[in-house]
Every structure is written in C-alpha cells, then in structure tokens.
C-alpha cells in the first residue's frame, strides 16, 4: 500500500525479462551478518570482509563441475548452486582446456538457469494456436502419428534428426533408437559442418577427427588457419594460438575471403575467392615442391600417392593460382615459406573449407599439404580441425548419421551384426524392423552398385541437408518406399540449412512435425501450418549429466547443475518414453537400468564402451571419466598429461582412441599418428584401412613404426589370424581367445586382440601409409571445381563441376545442370556466411539469452563499399538480398572492407523473420527469442558435396538492392 518507490535500475526495454532469479541472495544474507557485527567491533571493514568471506563463504553453496555447451573447445565451468538455484559461475582456472577462460557465450551460460524464454511445457498446434498438453498426451499423440506413418509408408518415412547438443549417451541412445525403429533416416548437424572433413580425413589416414588438440598448438612453430574464424567461433582456442604465436614466435597465417577477427591478429593474411581452397593449397604446394621444401623422408615412409598430387599441383602455377583465387604470388609464397621454415606447423580449418560441393577435395588437399611438409603425427603439427558444437565430435562418433552406425562401423551386414551383439538383440528381429516391402523407384540402387534391390538397412539414409528433398521429391525418384512424412527435430535449428523457402514448403507438406528442444527454434514458426506440430520441452545439458567429446577427442564428464526447469525432461527420458509408446523400449534399454522412465546414463556409457572398438571409446568408463573431471587440475596445460595424482599418466579426457577395456588403463591418444610414443602411452601410426597394396604399390608404412613396436615396419590391422601368425595368440587369456576367434580388433568384444597388439607395441589398426589419393572418391586426387553458382563463368569450362547424379544418398542430386546456367550477370555478388561470437548455431538458444542478445540485435549483411555504392546502399540501410533461386531476405547493410569486392557475408544465427515477414507472434507465448532476424540460409542455394552431401553455404551468388 505504498506508492511504488521507483528503483533506479534500468527500466528494461520491452525485450528485457523481469526479475531474474536473484543469485547468491542466500549466501549474501547469511554470510554477511557476521560482517555487520564485525563492524561494530571497530575493526576495519575491508579487512573484516575479507576475513569473513574466507571463513563463511563455503558450506552452503555447492560447486558443480560441468562443461560449456556452446562449442567444441569444451571449456570447464564451475557452477555455484544454492538450494537448487544456479547462483554463480566461477572460472575453472585449473581446467586444462580453457584455464578459466570463456567467450561471450561461455561467460553467460548461467542464464540457462533463468530460462526466461524456454519452452515450458509440451504444446501442440491446433488451428494455428499453441495449446498446452501434458507429457502423456504428447507422447501418446506423437507415438500414434509415427505408428500410423510406419503402417502406411514404412519406417523410412519418419526422419530422426538428432543433435550435436546431446551428450554422448543421448547421442548413442538416439542412434540406437533409430536403429530399432528400423531406419537409416537419421542424421545430425555433423552432416552440415564437418562431414566432408570426416570423410576426407578418415580416408587419408584413418580417423576423421582433429589429430592433435587445442593445447598442442602450444608446440606449433607455425599456424595456418583456413576457412575458419576461431576468434568468433572458438575464441578460447586463440588462447592457445596466441601462446604459440608469442612464445614460439610462430607466424600466424590466415586464409579467408573475409578479413576476420582472427585475420586481424595474423602475420599473413591471404584473401581468396570463396570456393578456391584447392587451387590455393596446390599453389602453396607448388612452391613447396618447386623449392624442395617437402619432407622427403616422411613422404617415402608414411605417404602414398604424393607423386599423383604433385602432378596435379604442378598445373597450379602462380599465375593460374592468382587467376583463380585472386591471391598474388608473393603472398602465397610468403605464407608457404613461413610454413616451410617453421615446422612443425599446425593446420586449422573450419566451415569455410568444408561447406562446398568439393568440400571433401578441400579437406584432402589440406591433409596433403601437411603430409608434404611432414607435419603429421608430431606434437605441434597435425590437422587441427575445430569442430563446431560442443558434442558434434561425440555425436559423429556415435553415428548419428545416415551412413554409419556408432563407431564408424558403416551399414554393412557385419556392422549390424556387431552392434546386434553389443545390444544383445536378435539380428533377425532387427532386420524385421526395417522396410521389407521396399518399392524402390526407378533409380533405386546406390550409385556405382548394381540395380539389385538393396536392403534399406544397409542403404545410406537421407542426409539432413536433403531432408526437404525427401519430402518434396517425386516419390519415384527416391530410393525408398515413400516420401518422408514425419520429421523429428530433436535439437536442431532448421535455419542452419540452406534453401529456406523450399524448407518451408517441405514443412508444410509433412504429416507431422515434432520439435524436441529447450527452445522453440525456427521450426516452430517458419511454416504456415495450423496443426500437426508438437513442441516438446527438452532439458539443457546443464539439467542432466553425461559425457561429452571435445574437438580434440577428449571425453569430459558433465555433472548436473540444476534440475530440469519447468516441465522439461532430459532427452534420454523423452527417448525412453517415446520408445515405450512405440513398443521398443525393451530392446532399446535391454541392459540399461531405467528409473522413472529415465535410462541410467552410466549404463549407457558402459554399453557403448562394449562396442566402440574402432575408435577406442572403450576405455573411458564412467568411473574414469568422473575421476578425470574431479582432478582436471592435475593435467598439464600443454601435453594434457596428468603428472601424479589419481590420473597419473592419463591424458585429459582420455582422447580417443583409448584402447582396450577400461581395466587396461590406456591413457588415451593426445596426438593421432604420433610415432614418437609407444601405443600404450598414446602413440599411434597411420591406420591400415585401405588394404595392403594397390596397383602393386605397398600401402603399409615403410621404415616407420611407433616407438617400442615389436614389428619394426608397416603391418596390416590385427585379426585373430594375424595374432596366430605372429605367435601372439597365446598372450590372450582363454576367455579372450574364445571371444576373439574369427574376429578382428574391431569386433572382438573382449578387447583381447587390442590388448595383445598394444602389449607388443603395435597399433591395433595396423601401421600403414596415409594416402593422398582416395581412389574410391569422385576425385581421387583433389581437384578444383567451380561452385555451382559461380561468378567466374570463364573458369567453368576448365574447372566444371560434377555430372548430375541419379541416386546419391537415396536422392537425385544436381550439379552440372545448375552450373550450366549463367546467373552471374543478374546476381553478381558472391554470397558467403559464417558465425558471430555472440551466437551459436541456429541461435535460438543464444538469441534467447539477454546478455548475449543485447550485443547483436540485428541481422546484417557485410558488403564492400564498392558494391554498396554500386547498389546505392549506405551503411545501416535496409537491403533486400536475393539469391539466384529467387528467395530473398531483408537485412541491414553493414558496409565494410572486411569483405572483398564482390563478396557479401551474412551470419547464419538469425531466424524468426522470413522474406521480410516478422514471425514473432507465431512463437508460443513467452518463448520468442529476444532477437529475431532473417535467416541467411533462406537465401542460400542448392549445392551438395560429392561424397557426403554437405551443403554449400560458403560460395553462392546474390544481388543486393536497397529496400
């Protein structure tokens, strides 16, 4: 009953939430009563405070260790929780990856505990309105829909779109759920971020992952970053880059069409035309070969096919490189010489290299460059591929992909049998789950294979980049019984995918659209559906626990910070509930304890420990992971090795491969293919994956082996046969012998073969050469091909794209037919895209965080002053940006020399506006993000990688006009 005394705090703008949970109030009020009394005693207040704080502070507040959920660096977080309220966030100074550091996103994760803009309860769309429903209703209705579609169109008509935001356990369970549902139409963000890397790199030397680690960059003598902007995408990684730059005097070379924030700190900056990575790398290698800078000994011992690369490279004379890439010779030379003079050098790439129709060529070219300089398998060298999401590495490893099972086992019958065994399921039951009456279309059959009917179980599913075509394409053109009828968006932002206008159409054609996410995402609003959409609130990773794999392959254990907010549920609980409705919960959780519909995370970890032999996810038991987390301060900042303490000798997070079973105590492998250490201590050789010889040439290593190896030469992968041949069979225990009989290192569930191989100093997967020629790929030696939408028509003839393909991942895929048409006159500006530091991915989560949203309130397009003047556009003007497929976005112009002439750049985190239309009122009440904007990918165009269906987002065309 008082006139409100107006406080002098900011009157929040309309966007700002009301009172957030007050942090530390309990602590404050309790702890400082003592301070008050102390004052009375006449002691100096400042002194008293300090003394008081040290004595009274702990006790009530709980400190919980977890890992940032924003990017793959995997920064540690110490969360202060009081009575279940997340009241504080302290820097984890002893965390080996970040030393307490955070970027804008990491420094604001506590806002998850406020969750003002979260989805709060399950809702469904009824006549265009969001209606609240209960979880039971939601699961029932969703399950009925799915079963109905399964009945009418087969299991392949339900698309399971998973997430790199799941922890390892959830990702694994998700892949298993899709498998027991009976489809390979399952995928996640890795498809559209580093799938070309995984394919390219794995096909070069065995594993498709970052070879070294962020911390290992400390050892680098030179650093090359191409197509990556870690200053915004992985800010904390620059801590390591700068350490090398300053202390090792390492030149930092940045190659990018954009003068990024990373480039601002570089010693050499090369501005290339988008989509010309291969020519530039070959141009650099040209100087290497010309000057004899290649590491000849390394190549002869450990590399296959460098001669073929050299032949291609020699076509890329400096003139031609400049003509195609726009980078003059002296710059290319300077960068090359800096790399050659300063070895080992590390090679870092990100989306700028991968998201192209020739993404796999790019990644393989990078690998070839590092192999030529002998920078592989050495501390300070390697290809440090910065992954995107916090657990995209883990989700990839667990095969939340349409072309493989967990552990990259592939989809062949053997792989299915392996996993059936791990899951303790009847293989025939599993087969029966899949479509049998498949009525393949006229183009049925994988390309290059026969047109025999293939079991959909072993047929690669539709990738996430193309799900819209799975809906929109003529039924007869798709290599499955029916179109996709139901989409399950489980932690996926649709605006990270291209062709927004067609996506809208696809969403409207679906029978059911199910969105499971902590935030509504653009999936909830970008279509004009009036029903058949379900929004189910998932908990964030701070509201559950489990392991997460950082980019450097280290597994870190997250503890639960707070209980799920509102009515949200952890993903694995939702999976179980859904499985129960679908009648497959017994199979899904056969050996996993379930309590209150929540499968026990540790049991899931143990289950995948039993099956993930290929990439060594077998040694990281939950107990070991928790021990690492509790003792993360004992690991060295550079080597990541624990010196003393409970984890003595281990590398932090046991970077995979962590061979054998947990009992074996393998420390993890900090740097892949590093022969200077015994395999038992983290050393490795290149994997023997591609056979032992080709065209009479030996594919195994020659004169190179890992330290302590008893086989002092190359050797193939280990099988029971090989053990017997080597006379090491008897090193297996009787039980192991029983299990290993007829098996190899990948399928022996006892782990005996791995144990014995390592005991003798050998890598279980063999010791071979890396290959620079991938003879199974469309371009065995990476070559340049112009983007589909290219502004350089003069180069199309010499560097044409691929022929159209009739069936590729079940879908017809166009290349030449698009490139044939000249759009360069009407759409003269090259369009590329990338990240902002404040936002992540589709941005729904970060745009709902007021601390971040305030810093980026408007979607924009960067354009060069010349282009701006030509279009009559001034800085800050509204512009229409239209892509050659006719879709357009209305954004603010930011006129800057950050981009080159003829290039425009847009960040891709925005959504909530669609071709000039504001969709804010379509969000469920109270769940609209603070900042909305046009999704850049609305205007992005067709174009998919020739191996992985990676979407092209880095080189398209557009025109810009004043709005």
């Amino acid at each position, binding site marked *: 009953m008082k006139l409100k005394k107006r406080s002098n705090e*900011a009157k929040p703008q309309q966007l700002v939430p009301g009172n957030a949970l007050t942090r530390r109030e309990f602590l404050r009020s309790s702890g400082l009563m003592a*301070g*008050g009394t102390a004052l009375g005693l006449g002691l100096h207040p400042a002194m008293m405070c300090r003394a008081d704080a040290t004595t009274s502070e702990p006790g009530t507040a709980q400190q919980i260790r977890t890992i940032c959920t924003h990017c793959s660096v995997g920064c540690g977080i110490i969360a202060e929780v009081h009575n279940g309220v997340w009241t504080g966030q302290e820097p984890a100074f002893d965390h080996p990856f970040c030393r307490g550091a955070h970027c804008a996103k990491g420094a604001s994760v506590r806002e998850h505990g406020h969750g003002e803009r979260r989805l709060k309860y399950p809702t469904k769309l009824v006549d265009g309105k969001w209606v609240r429903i209960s979880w039971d209703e939601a699961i029932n209705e969703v399950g009925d829909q799915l079963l109905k579609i399964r009945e009418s169109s087969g299991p392949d008509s339900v698309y399971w779109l998973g997430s790199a935001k799941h922890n390892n356990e959830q990702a694994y369970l998700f892949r298993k759920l899709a498998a027991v549902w009976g489809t390979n139409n399952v995928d996640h963000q890795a498809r559209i971020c580093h799938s070309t890397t995984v394919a390219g790199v794995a096909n070069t030397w065995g594993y498709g992952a970052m070879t070294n680690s962020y911390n290992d960059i400390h050892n680098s003598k030179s650093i090359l970053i191409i197509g990556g902007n870690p200053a915004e995408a992985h800010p904390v990684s620059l801590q390591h880059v*700068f350490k090398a730059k300053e*202390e090792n005097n390492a030149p930092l070379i940045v190659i990018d069409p954009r003068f990024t924030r990373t480039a601002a700190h570089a010693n050499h900056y090369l501005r290339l035309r988008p989509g010309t990575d291969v020519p530039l790398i070959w141009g650099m290698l040209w100087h290497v070969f010309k000057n004899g800078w290649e590491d000849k000994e390394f190549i002869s011992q450990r590399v296959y096919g460098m001669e073929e690369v050299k032949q291609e490279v020699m076509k890329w004379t400096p003139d031609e490189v400049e003509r195609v890439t726009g980078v003059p010779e002296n710059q290319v030379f300077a960068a090359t010489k800096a790399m050659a003079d300063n070895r080992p050098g590390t090679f870092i790439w990100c989306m700028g290299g991968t998201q192209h129709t020739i993404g796999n060529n790019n990644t393989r070219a990078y690998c070839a460059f590092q192999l030529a300089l002998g920078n592989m398998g050495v501390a300070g060298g390697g290809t440090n591929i910065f992954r995107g999401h916090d657990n995209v590495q883990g989700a990839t490893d667990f095969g939340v992909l349409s072309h493989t099972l967990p552990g990259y086992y592939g989809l062949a019958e053997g792989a299915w049998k392996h996993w059936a065994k791990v899951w303790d399921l009847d293989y025939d039951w599993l087969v029966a789950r899949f479509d049998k009456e498949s009525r393949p279309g006229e183009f049925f059959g994988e390309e290059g294979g026969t047109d025999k009917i293939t079991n959909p179980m072993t047929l690669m599913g539709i990738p996430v980049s193309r799900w819209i075509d799975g809906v929109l394409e003529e039924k007869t053109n798709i290599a499955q019984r029916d179109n996709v009828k139901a989409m399950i968006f489980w932690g996926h932002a649709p605006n990270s995918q291209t062709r927004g206008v067609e996506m809208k159409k696809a969403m409207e054609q679906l029978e059911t659209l199910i969105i499971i996410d902590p935030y509504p995402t653009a999936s909830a609003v970008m279509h004009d559906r009036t029903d058949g959409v379900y929004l189910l609130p998932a908990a964030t990773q701070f509201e559950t626990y489990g392991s997460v794999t950082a980019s450097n392959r280290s597994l870190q254990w997250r503890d639960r910070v707070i209980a799920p907010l509102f009515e949200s549920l952890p993903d694995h609980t939702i999976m179980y509930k859904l499985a129960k409705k679908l009648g497959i919960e017994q199979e899904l959780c056969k050996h996993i304890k379930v309590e209150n519909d929540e499968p026990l995370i540790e049991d899931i970890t143990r289950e995948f420990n039993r099956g993930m032999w290929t990439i060594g996810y077998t040694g990281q038991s939950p107990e070991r992971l928790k021990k690492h987390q509790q003792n993360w301060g004992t690991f060295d900042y550079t080597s990541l090795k624990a010196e003393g303490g409970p984890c003595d000798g281990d590398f932090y997070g046991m970077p995979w491969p962590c061979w054998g079973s947990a009992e074996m105590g393998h420390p993890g492998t900090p740097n892949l293919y590093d022969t200077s250490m015994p395999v038992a201590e983290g050393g490795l050789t290149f994997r023997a994956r591609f056979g032992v010889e080709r065209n009479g040439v030996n594919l195994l290593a020659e004169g190179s082996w890992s330290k302590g190896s008893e086989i002092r030469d190359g050797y193939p992968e280990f099988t029971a046969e090989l053990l017997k041949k080597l006379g090491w069979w008897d090193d297996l225990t009787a039980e192991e012998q029983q299990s290993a009989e007829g098996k190899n290192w990948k399928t022996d569930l006892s782990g005996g073969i791995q144990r014995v191989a390592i005991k003798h100093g050998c890598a279980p997967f063999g010791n071979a050469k890396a290959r620079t020629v991938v003879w199974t790929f469309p371009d065995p030696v990476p070559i340049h091909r112009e983007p589909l939408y290219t502004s350089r028509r003069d180069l199309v003839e010499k560097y044409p794209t691929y022929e159209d393909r009739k069936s590729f991942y079940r879908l017809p895929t166009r290349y030449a037919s698009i490139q044939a048409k000249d759009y360069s006159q009407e759409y003269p500006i090259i369009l590329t895209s990338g990240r902002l530091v404040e936002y992540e991915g589709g941005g729904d989560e970060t745009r709902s965080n007021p601390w971040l949203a*305030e810093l980026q309130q408007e979607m924009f397009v960067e354009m060069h002053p010349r282009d701006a003047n030509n279009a009559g556009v001034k800085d800050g003007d509204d512009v229409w940006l239209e892509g050659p497929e006719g879709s357009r976005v209305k954004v603010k112009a930011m006129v800057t020399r950050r981009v080159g002439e003829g290039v425009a750049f847009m960040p891709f985190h925005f959504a909530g506006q669609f071709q000039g239309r504001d969709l804010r009122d379509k969000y469920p009440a109270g769940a609209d993000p603070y900042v909305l904007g046009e999704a850049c990918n609305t205007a992005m165009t067709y174009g998919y990688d020739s191996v992985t269906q990676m979407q092209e987002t880095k080189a398209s065309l557009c025109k810009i006009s004043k709005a």
Partner: protein
Amino acid sequence: MARMKFYCDAERCIECNGCVTACKNENEVPWGVNRRRVVTIKDGVPGERSLSVACMHCSDAPCAAVCPVDCFYTTEDGVVLHDKDICIGCGYCFYACPFGAPQFPADGAFATRGKMDKCTFCAGGPKADNSAEEYRKYGSNRLAEGKLPLCAEMCSTKALLAGDADVLSEIYRKRIVYRAASSLQRGVSYQDATLRSPSGLTGRASSNE
C-alpha cells in the same frame, strides 16, 4: 596495499565480448547498461585492434572531481566506487570520464537518467555488507572473497588482466619481450606480403627445438 588495475592487451583481445557477458552474469546488470564494452578500432581493415574498456579506476579520478554531490570514493585497493544513495544522476561523471565508463539506466529523456552505474572492480558497494540490497545496486563483491573481477578472470585469451598493478606490469613485460623478438624477426604483412622471414633456411627448420 594493492593498487587494483585493469589492463587490456590489444594484441590478444579478439572482441569475443566474454568480458561483457561475464560482467552481466556476475552482476546481473540489466539490458541497456554495460559496465564493460569492447571497442574495436580500424574495424575490418588491417590494423584492427580491440580493447575491452570499463572503469579504469583512475588514481586521480575525473569523475570524482566533477561530481556535484561528491559520491565517489577510492577504496584502499585503489578501486573507485560511488554511492548510489548519494548520486543524483546528473551525468557529469560521464562527460568527464575519458573512457565512457559511467552508465545510466534510463533512456535519459529530460535528463532523468537514474543513478549512475559503473564497473565496481567487482568490489561491491560502500556498505560492503554483502547484502542482497548491495548486490542489487552494485553487483557482487568478489574482492572480499579474494577473487578478482570476473570479466578479467574469464577473458578468453587472457587479454584482459586485472589485479595488482605491479603484478600486471610484470606479466605484460614478459609478453612484450616475446613480442619484441617476434616483430623484429617477422614483422606483420597482411596483404602486402613482405618476405621478411629469415633467409638462408632451406626447408628443414626449427622443428626439433
């Protein structure tokens, strides 16, 4: 006693805005008030550098000099604080401050800006009683807990340093020494590539050092 200072190393600052959100996180600063900001000069062109700026806790603070109600004071740690119960929101400190540190919560139409708000070096308010009221007005008091400002503690590249001036200068001196060597040897090229790398090396290089 210690003289608390901030130092931002422009060679390392990458404008990740971690300091900005860390401050929001620690102090629950509302939308529109930013006690810290990152300023980038030469944005988008060679020479681009960023600096994280907040109250610098000047030894002879101009804000304190011009305040008509004398609400500023300097703690024994050298932290410049102000008393919001005294502040009348006149904005003079904002005119005087070289760094643009003072912030005002209201929109300012007709000079009703509300009480000034600024970086407290995470040292709370004048009463230092760790009360909810103190927290609401001034944010947290980390110094009392033996911690330094969260912005600096969380800086992604360790560009922003906070702490005792002597210690900071020692850290910075070390970096300067490394960099001096680096620049001497290599220089900076950006697009006008210079071939200033040491000559005479023939390919095999410093790999075994």
